[in-house]
């Protein structure tokens, strides 16, 4: 690939539009154009130079901004599809069959299609990940291809430009000046006052400001890449923990995903705003919607296993007490535990009494802790109740034996052996909620008195070592985007032309309005020739109109 030699003697890389040094247009297109395209300073994008191997072709594909924008649009459009119906993780069912049934029941044929095409979990689908990956690839390659040539070309730019470059700027003016040298000097003075970096060379002045804003896009792209890299890291085991646990009031259990740590729930609290207590300004809203939840809270104690203790040992040390509320997770050792969910009023214990059926006389009450029932309960007057069978979640009888379908006391049932001094051999009875079965007519009965309940907290455990990487990416992105948007790169060229003429040209990557304001004050101060903004066709017509 040959270099392009400019008339000024500078050798430019293939693909260059404007000579890096003097700014002469090099391509036919540039030569014909009235206002030259100043993107990337007319420098050669690296990828444009080769079009040979397959690797170069792929590279060029991703280097194109058109492709980049197409990928952005593709991500945008597919993301929108995913919001049509709820995603898998917001749906109360889990298994594929249930999911299909769920979408079909609620959304009919379209729901079925939505499920079958995988849109119900599309943000985890391979094709969505490929799209995001392509976006990342495009960001990297397109940036690499542009930032280096741009840097070189801004570094190499000469103060004195060829008139053909000046003439093709959007803001350009040409005219005679009485004292060109004085004008140049005054212009320099004024530009310096306006915080421009001014360079002089052989009857030419180049004033430049905020060049660093040109790097904004590349800085923010770096931030995005760091962010995407952080997300990628979550796939490595150990970088990311996401678990859930249900914990009952009074229960002590190990924290899933956080080895060596244990949590005890002391209490779950749910508070409501009530008309009586809440501020009166909330009165109308409470009338309208009924009650509004004020607080969800789990009071917990955190424990840690002793250093040399083995898993399972009860040898642990207290770390701290904490009240987990929404927006205030419990934090320890990189873990966060969040208040996410709750279930109210699970049975905890049941109070029973033993009575003689005929007289209704009671032998006293006893309480069965449903977590840790005892075998024998001693009552008054020498009576005892032996608990010989306990079924926490009674679900009927199978093979002559009562069965429990889970260890959770949703529907507790008991087999009691009741002994009194009168009947020392004992009487057996099966007691479940709302029912008592006896093999033969008994003289005694265990009767339900009252029950105690407790609440269960649903907690989420998270550990995310990538958060700081993500945050760093976010911060760099913000720096870059602010750098690129809130500042703009402005350049003003003033130079002596032939026979005492003065040429003025100016360029900015955005905010032409301010540039023109600045140029206007330089013009007035230094007596520079009149210039025009060749994009602004309205001004002329409007002025004409105004003069009529």
């Amino acid at each position: 690939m040959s270099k392009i030699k400019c008339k000024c003697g500078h050798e430019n890389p293939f693909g260059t539009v404007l000579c890096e040094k003097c700014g002469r247009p090099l391509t036919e297109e540039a030569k014909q154009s009235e206002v030259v395209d100043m993107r990337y300073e007319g420098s050669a994008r690296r990828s444009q130079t080769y079009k040979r191997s397959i690797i170069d072709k792929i590279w060029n594909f991703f280097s194109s901004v058109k492709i980049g924008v197409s990928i952005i649009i593709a991500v945008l459009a597919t993301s929108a599809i995913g919001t049509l119906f709820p995603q898998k993780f917001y749906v109360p069912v889990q298994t594929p069959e249930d999911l299909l049934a769920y979408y079909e029941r609620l959304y009919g044929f379209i729901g079925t299609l939505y499920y079958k095409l995988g849109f119900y979990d599309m943000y985890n689908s391979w094709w969505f990940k490929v799209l995001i990956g392509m976006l990342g690839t495009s960001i990297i390659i397109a940036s690499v291809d542009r930032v280096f040539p741009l840097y070189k070309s801004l570094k190499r730019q000469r103060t004195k430009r060829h008139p053909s470059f000046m003439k093709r700027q959007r803001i350009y003016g040409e005219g005679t000046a009485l004292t060109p040298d004085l004008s140049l000097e005054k212009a320099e003075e004024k530009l310096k006052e306006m915080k421009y970096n001014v360079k002089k060379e052989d009857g030419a002045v180049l004033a430049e400001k905020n060049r660093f804003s040109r790097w904004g896009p590349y800085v923010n792209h770096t931030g995005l890449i760091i962010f995407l890299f952080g997300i990628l890291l979550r796939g490595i085991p150990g970088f990311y923990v996401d678990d859930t646990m249900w914990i009952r009031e009074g229960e002590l259990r190990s924290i899933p995903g956080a080895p060596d740590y244990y949590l005890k729930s002391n209490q779950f609290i749910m508070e409501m705003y009530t008309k009586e207590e809440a501020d009166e300004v909330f009165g109308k809203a409470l009338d309208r919607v009924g009650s509004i939840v004020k607080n969800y809270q789990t009071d917990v104690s955190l424990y840690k296993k002793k250093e040399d203790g083995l898993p399972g040992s009860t040898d642990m040390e207290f770390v701290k007490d904490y009240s987990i509320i929404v927006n205030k997770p419990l934090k320890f050792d990189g873990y966060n535990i969040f208040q996410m969910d709750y279930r109210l009023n699970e049975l905890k214990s049941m109070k029973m009494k033993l009575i003689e059926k005929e007289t209704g006389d009671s032998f006293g009450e006893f309480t069965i802790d449903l977590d840790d029932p005892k075998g024998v309960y001693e009552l008054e007057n020498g009576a005892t109740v032996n608990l010989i069978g306990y079924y926490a979640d009674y679900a009927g009888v199978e093979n002559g034996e009562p069965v429990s379908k889970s260890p959770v006391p949703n529907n507790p049932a008991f087999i009691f052996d009741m002994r009194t001094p009168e009947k020392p051999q004992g009487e057996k009875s099966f007691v479940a909620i709302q029912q008592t079965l006896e093999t033969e007519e008994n003289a005694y009965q265990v009767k339900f008195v009252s029950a105690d309940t407790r609440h269960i907290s649903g907690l989420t455990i998270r550990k995310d070592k990538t958060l700081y990487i993500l945050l760093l990416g976010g911060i760099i992105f913000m720096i870059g985007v602010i750098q690129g948007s809130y500042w703009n790169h402005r350049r003003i060229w003033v130079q002596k032309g032939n026979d005492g003429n003065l040429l003025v040209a100016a360029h900015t990557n955005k905010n032409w309005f301010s540039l023109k304001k600045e140029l206007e004050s330089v013009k007035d101060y230094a007596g520079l020739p009149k210039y025009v903004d060749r994009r602004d066709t309205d001004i002329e017509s409007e002025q004409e109109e105004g003069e009529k």
Partner: protein
Amino acid sequence: MMELADLSANLLLVSFIAYLVATAFFGGAIKKASSETTYKKSRWGQIGITITVIGFISNLGYFITRWMASGHIPLSNMFEFTAAFGMMLVGAFILLFYLYRTPSLGLFALPIAIIMIAYASMFPKDITPLIPALQSHWLVIHVITTVIGEAILVISAVAGLVYLLKNVDLTKPSRERFWLEAVMIALVLVIGFVVSSTTFKLTGYEAHFTYIDKEDKPKDIEYNYPPLFGMNEYEAQTPEAMTPWIEMPAIVNAKTLTTFVWSVATGIVLYLLLRLSIRRPVATLLKPFAKKANSQLMDEIGYRAVLIGFPVFTLGALIFAMIWAHEAWSRFWGWDPKEVWALISWLFYAAFLHLRLSQGWEGKKSAWLAVIGFIIIMFNLIAVNLIIAGLHSYA
């Protein structure tokens, strides 16, 4: 506290009226001026911006007194959020007015803010206590930044609209004329919603129903419009109310649908009346007001507004949002519809900037993109909250 709440409501009314008056003055500024340069210095424009600023201060007063009355920032339900959006839009306009001094922008930005505040007022205006998920200082940081960012981005659409009204030839049928008219119709539909909602509110219409929701639970619902559509397995509790035409399945919120159909019907009637009385596209009504604007300046404002708004929007709607989501919901990103639509808006403006910077999409193309961006933001504000239920649907 109640006095503060009342004061707050009055201040909002004052600013609403101030914006209406200011719009008239901006209109006058443009009518009177013979050219760009003269109307920049026009007295009418001066008065217009002064009234706008007074209205904005009163609007801020509404915001602060409501904050004081409720003890939390008034950005926690649909009314509060949309009203704040309207307020910030005026704020963004004032900012850009002092940068560029162009009354044309005000003439179009203020009516949009007015429509937005009117739209907001159709939602329950009661001060609601904060639910646990919202009890965080991030509510202030995240929502305020997002609203400011979005308001600045909407200014870009306003500039785009002025640009298009000025530069699209409305005398001959064309695709551009069609779509510009479509935007006008959309605005009229919003007015239709406000008009119909106000009408039924003034007549005090109410109809109660019980129904079965999609989780098979019985629920109550109250309609403020004559119920065209009934909820799933509805039973009327208000005997004198009309019987719905048709019962909807459980996934469709028939109340929302009823409101929607009434609004669209009213809007279409309004549009047709307007159209019949002027016998040409409604956009032509507005064209004279855009005529004096400087195209180049509008193009630049449109672009600058995106440049200023994009970083603010990123910070508020994505970065702060992620930090808060991590604190409240344990994950910084959960593909909740509101989150996804914020991402979509962000991607859209990223595409806008790329197309402008490296594909040279300026002028009309850029203006159309700005208008589409406005539609996406409004979709996220309105449709995602009302139709697509997610974690953000507090209202």
